[in-house]
């Protein structure tokens, strides 16, 4: 299994999700549609998981080196987060957004075909590699979800009436996402000590990861102090995701980051 098979797998996944979302969204009228809808969504996630596992086996290394490979994990975790959130809090709109965003990332991967590359540089051969990337991708999925909620909140503030439960959902996602972001950052620090001699070197990726972390930290403190104020935290949360994206993708294109130890392939 490798990237040649990606289009067919990706198509199967996206079709499953479209059918699933459609069935779940018509379920208020047709009750029977909800369960099959859920099964389609989960099937899509499982197909993607199978692709990831087969790719891992075929490449003989964790498929987490290039941006395209991390996008794939992201497209896997986001629906997982979306599905759990939907089960837990019954937000149907949220599931469709999560699946939509995941599909978008899968289409980006399809438009930028990955090349097949087995090599893994010595710096990445470490037991920290897999937990560091997985924890980060899971955090990114949760925080992307929180920003989606924030955008919905902003829409409510300006065009309809703001519902406190929207912000509460955002808070829950941020808290869990932030705990994973912290784990990712600290795993990275512990790994850096093993690989490069120091736990913190202000590498551009580190700097931007730290900035991302600080942004969410500000959001959490703000919410704690004035829980009734909504506009500012909603904006902070929407913009925090922009910083996150710079950290994830933007870095590879920054001239100051050409010597970064985190640039392992730009596709």
């Amino acid at each position, binding site marked *: 299994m490798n990237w040649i098979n990606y289009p067919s797998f990706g198509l199967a996944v996206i079709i499953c999700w479209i059918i699933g979302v459609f069935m779940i969204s018509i379920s208020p009228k047709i009750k029977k549609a909800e369960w099959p809808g859920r099964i389609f969504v989960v099937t899509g996630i499982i197909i993607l998981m199978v692709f990831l596992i087969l790719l891992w086996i075929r490449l003989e290394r964790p498929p987490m080196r290039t941006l395209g490979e991390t996008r794939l994990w992201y497209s896997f975790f986001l629906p997982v987060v979306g599905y759990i959130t939907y089960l837990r809090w019954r937000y149907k709109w949220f599931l469709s957004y999560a699946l939509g965003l995941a599909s978008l990332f899968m289409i980006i991967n399809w438009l930028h075909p990955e090349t097949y590359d087995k090599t893994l540089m010595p710096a990445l051969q470490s037991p920290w590699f897999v937990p560091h990337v997985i924890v980060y991708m899971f955090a990114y999925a949760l925080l992307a979800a929180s920003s989606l909620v924030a955008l919905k909140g902003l829409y409510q503030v300006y065009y309809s009436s703001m519902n406190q439960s929207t912000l509460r959902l955002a808070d829950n996602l941020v808290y869990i996402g932030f705990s994973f972001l912290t784990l990712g950052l600290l795993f990275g620090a512990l790994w850096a000590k093993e690989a490069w001699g120091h736990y913190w070197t202000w590498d551009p990726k580190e700097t931007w990861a730290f900035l991302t972390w600080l942004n969410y930290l500000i959001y959490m403190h703000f919410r704690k102090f004035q829980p009734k*104020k909504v506009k500012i935290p909603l904006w902070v949360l929407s913009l925090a995701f922009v910083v996150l994206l710079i950290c994830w993708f933007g870095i590879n294109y920054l001239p100051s980051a050409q010597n970064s130890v985190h640039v392992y392939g730009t596709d």
Partner: protein
Amino acid sequence: MKPERVKRKTWQYPWGYKESFLIILELVLLGFIFEVLTKGRGFPGIHWPANLVTGLLLIALIILIHLLFRNHPFVKWLSSIPAAISAISFYTFLVLILGFLPQGNPHVHPVIRILGLYHIQNSWTLAISSLYLLTSLGLVILRRSSALNRKNIGFLMNHAGMWIVLAAAGLGSGDIQRLTMELHEDSGFINIAMGQSRTVQELPFSVKLIDFHIDEYTPKIGIVDRNTGELISHKGFTYISAEEGDITEFDNWTIRINRFIENALDDSAQYIPSDTHGAAPAVLVNIQNNVTSVVIEEWLSCGSYLVPAKYIQLDNQHIMIMLNPEAERYRSDIVIDSGQKQDTVAIEVNKPYNIKGYNIYQLSYDERMGKWSKTSIFEIVKDPWLTIVYVGIFMLLAGAAYIFLIGNEQTKEIK
């Protein structure tokens, strides 16, 4: 937005966001003034034992303030969330500059140079920002720890962990030694290393290099389009692996690897296996053009400092090349003499060796010689404050786990 309380004048207690951010502004200006006064030398940094004394004084000061003045509105403000947010924002602002402006090069716009924005890491602004953050955070920790209960555990893990990491990393940075040691396979035991400013330093142990070697992945073979200068891509592959016996359809060609020699020397249009230093990988490839059915068989090599590279002209537009093999592993076998005993150990990337508080890392080698390098370069790091930083990091890890398990308590309370 509705006004939430009676309007009060600026600087009238209790202070809120406005005062917090005005104070930040003053602290930033203070930092800039120090930068100008010290003429771009920045914050000199503090070393042992001054850093320990500073740390203890800071702790004593925070405890005293907490014990004596905890009910004073200024101290109340300093341990409030607006002060915390202003402190984090101040720090964020500096990190943002660090993330955007190239660091380390003083040949920048005069304004950037005078304000010290090109060396944020050792600027007065960062030192002041850290001090402000540590004071505020310290007071918060003391305020919350006066009521020790289960609900506070997560809070204290996160906040105290952060305090310890910031304080220990900041105060300890002056004591970190990063040295490089260059070893040659013939040079015997060496106990000196080079500091950052080329100062020579003696180490309490000595090291002898037995063998340095690089394991390489099988070299890749690709086809370059001479118009674009780039490798052509075929079904998601831009190369084929030089495995002996493999037959691959690639674009218009059927490529068969007839022979692969890992270490070869060229000898009148032939390549023969050799153990000579500088030998390069070579393959004998059989290429059939599927359009014209023309078959050629030629040698291909990426070359080395000794062997010239050899490519194959496929047609007017395409040439076949061998890419330089990528390293799979760098490894140095060394003997370490600690004075009491000798140990034979292997050092690899991601696998440092610890002796007497020093960590030895595989850093580099003689890149000109590639895998035939007989030189290995190590980085030797001593960070006496590392244990304390790790205590903080593990508290933060526990705190993160706590947040994940318990989640956000507050949102459950607000209606």
